[in-house]
């Protein structure tokens, strides 16, 4: 069994209005050293499969197909072996 931790964020070229709004709020709270805020999505997906290569292949495929919009977003992931 594997736990996939998948992080989805906007491509750097895409304006992130939610991240910008949070950054403005942090500045209003006087955290003047806050340079940049990226707001994304986080998924934890359990896969009942012991073949790590196959798990990686699946995670990459379904992330591209469903979890991200390839026009605007990118993803990265970690795989963690867990007890079934």
């Amino acid at each position, binding site marked *: 069994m594997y736990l996939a931790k998948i992080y989805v964020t*906007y491509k750097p*070229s*895409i*304006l992130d*209005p*939610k991240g910008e*709004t949070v950054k403005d709020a942090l500045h209003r709270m006087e955290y003047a050293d806050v340079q940049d805020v990226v707001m994304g*999505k986080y998924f934890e997906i359990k896969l009942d499969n012991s073949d790590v290569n196959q798990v990686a292949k699946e995670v990459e495929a379904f992330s591209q197909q*469903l*979890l991200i*919009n390839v*026009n*605007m977003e990118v993803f990265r992931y970690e795989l963690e072996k867990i007890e079934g």
Partner: protein
Amino acid sequence: MKAAVITFPGSNCDYDMYYALHDEFGIETTIIPATTTDLSAYDAIFLPGGFSYGDYLRTGAIARFSPVMDALITANQQGKIIVGICNGFQILTEAGLLPGALQTNIQPGFICDETGLTIANATTTFTNAFETPTIKLPIAHGEGNYYVDEAQLAELQGNNQILFAYTDNPNGSVANIAGVMNKAGNVFGMMPHPERAVDELLGNTDGRAFFQSILASLATHLEVSNV
């Protein structure tokens, strides 16, 4: 003409669209669920506004995997008219039937207002009946900020696929784009709501020409097919 309005779980403008098509223009219209797998009976298919699948994940992302979408792709291959309004537009981009993507409005918040539009191309299936260069239509969306990269924008402009542009760009869309058509000219999506502007009672009838355009195109098309 036979029209279908597809209801996804969370659609909320399906009856607005039905009312416009059926009650205002007398079109034989059926509301069908997203579990439908056969659209062969219809000449035109409308994807209404709303919040399909709660807009979970991204607007339109989950709807794109509904059973009806395979039938919609078949209908597209047959050159049938496919229209997506608001959430329907978002679904069509997610499905790859229209280019680009819709993202969060540039200013935070849901906009419910009336916006000015220019008709950028008045010679299409969806715009041929417009008689004025600018109109007003209602908008209601939180994620209407249309995005395409520079290469895609150049292609849209080169092929005259941009049909409507905002006069004041309320959501930050690239090149003020409010509505685009596919290259083949049979699939169209827009964020504003023409179906909410078809009756004097609603205080705006600028949306009528959108439906009149489709009716006029289809009448010509059906005549040609029947020869």
